[in-house]
């Protein structure tokens, strides 16, 4: 895979300028038979992530976090603005971007009757990895994420959420992504599993020199993992800076207080009208 990779030392990992994405949605308050309106899921978002950096984006449900991740992972087309992933446009040079990116979402998303090994095997073929290359790699990676060897052949539907999420991390790592997009990777996990996943993310960053974009509404997770934290509110990126700087800017003692000061809402609150965007 290295043959087609760009010179990543010269370009930022992610460069987004005035990115806008709208969806046509029927607004509840307009009544059942009202015409759909174009509503911005992302509105003029601008930021840069340097190579090797870990950036966390905080936002309520419906704030546009998942839309941002899906735009960068080539699953959506934008309406205006620009985005570059290691210098490649995710809307036109999809193939180049796809080779560099992988993601872990809140839902583990596997063929549930198939085993962890089978799910990882077919997924790695899509990235050009042959049986010869994955025969040892898959057991190694599953062992690294703390997945018990004796359960590798069990259907995914028999595994706990925490176990499934570990396999999702293994799937993302298997393809050696230089940009890892994490969309609420620990939501719904028990405290122990959450901690294990967070430790693993730290290891990945240290060992693989991966750049990480973490979208979450877990403040402690953002503070523990990220170099810079951004706040996305109603599709607009309100700020993006190191935690200390963020606290100073909003004269807050905690990230929660800073988030409230920046958005006027608590992080746990949901924006009902915009929830459809996530």
């Amino acid at each position, binding site marked *: 895979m290295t043959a087609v990779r760009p010179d990543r030392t010269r370009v930022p990992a992610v460069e987004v300028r005035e990115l806008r994405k709208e*969806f046509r949605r029927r607004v509840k308050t307009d009544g059942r038979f009202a015409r759909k309106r174009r509503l911005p899921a992302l509105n003029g978002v601008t930021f840069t992530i340097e190579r090797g950096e870990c950036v966390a984006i905080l936002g309520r449900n419906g704030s546009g976090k998942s839309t941002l991740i*899906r735009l960068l*992972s080539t*699953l959506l087309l934008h309406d205006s603005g620009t985005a570059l992933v290691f210098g490649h446009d995710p809307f036109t040079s999809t193939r180049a971007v796809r080779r560099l990116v992988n993601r872990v979402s809140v839902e583990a*998303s596997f*063929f549930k*009757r198939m085993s962890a090994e089978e799910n990882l*095997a077919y997924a790695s*073929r*899509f990235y050009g990895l042959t049986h010869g290359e994955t025969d040892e790699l898959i057991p190694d990676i599953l062992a690294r994420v703390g997945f018990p060897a004796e359960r590798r052949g069990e259907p995914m539907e028999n595994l706990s959420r925490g176990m499934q999420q570990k396999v999702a991390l293994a799937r993302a790592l298997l393809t050696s992504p230089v940009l890892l997009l994490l969309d609420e990777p620990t939501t719904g996990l028990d405290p122990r599993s959450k901690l294990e996943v967070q430790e693993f993310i730290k290891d990945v960053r240290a060992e693989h020199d991966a750049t990480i974009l973490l979208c979450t509404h877990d403040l402690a997770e953002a503070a523990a993992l990220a170099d810079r934290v951004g706040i996305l509110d109603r599709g607009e990126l309100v700020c993006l800076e190191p935690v200390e700087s963020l606290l100073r800017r909003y004269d807050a003692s905690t990230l929660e207080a800073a988030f409230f000061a920046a958005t006027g809402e608590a992080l746990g609150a949901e924006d009902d009208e915009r929830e459809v965007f996530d």
Partner: protein
Amino acid sequence: MARQVAFTLRHELVGLGGVVERNWYLVKRYVWWELAFFVWTVANTLTIVFIAKGLRAGGAPVNVDRLTTVLLIGAVIWAYLGIIFEVLTETVAWERWEGTIEYTFMAPLSRPVHLFGMGFFAVCYGVVRAGLLFGVVAGLFGLSLPDANLAGAIVVLAVASVSFLGIGMMTAVLPLVSPEKGTQLGFVAQGVLLVVSGVYYPVSVLPGWMQWLSTISPATYALRGIRAAILDGAGLGTLWGDVWPLLAIGAAAIPLGLETFRRGERYAKRHGKLKRSG
């Protein structure tokens, strides 16, 4: 340059193998469903094939063996086409059901190769299933088929499969564009195709406008060619009259299918439908 082409080609071939591998895992994991579905198909075919004996019992002057074979070929082609359409529709529908659609569609595998992988599996699986169905029902009825040119029938089926895959690619995109109704629309397309193609009757009994449609349906030539090969032992020279229209329709259907899917995928990416919940 040559190295880059070789790298890309290898990557795509490994990816195509991954698509086939995944479908094979699914067949193994759902083996009891497969068996139940096969028994249902046999029962369904018997209800059609017994019509020949029913007509004879009612006093109609029919050659029971010949009519039984005509009906059996219609039922087997119906089942085969159903498998091709079903597998190709699963390119989107099953992925969405399992929640893996975003991971598959953001993998660096070109869409034509992805679709050809699904098509290759569909043809292999369909041939095995259709062959078993034909063998089981022919055995139950004691059909001897002394004049059958089985090799000729297989050639016609193989050439027809190219056209079926092209049309299947067009219907495969429907669940992407319309998550709620797309799969059902695929069944409608399959039914219409067979109704106008003389699945259990000569095309000449159809109304004029349906007869016109039958001239552009590949199933018309497939059914006529396979019946000629099995019932009358027609050689390749005679079958050419049905093979060349199939080649022509296939040459148009594959690019049309790929382009339809490309446009559908673009529409889904524009409107945010390329995700698990539609």
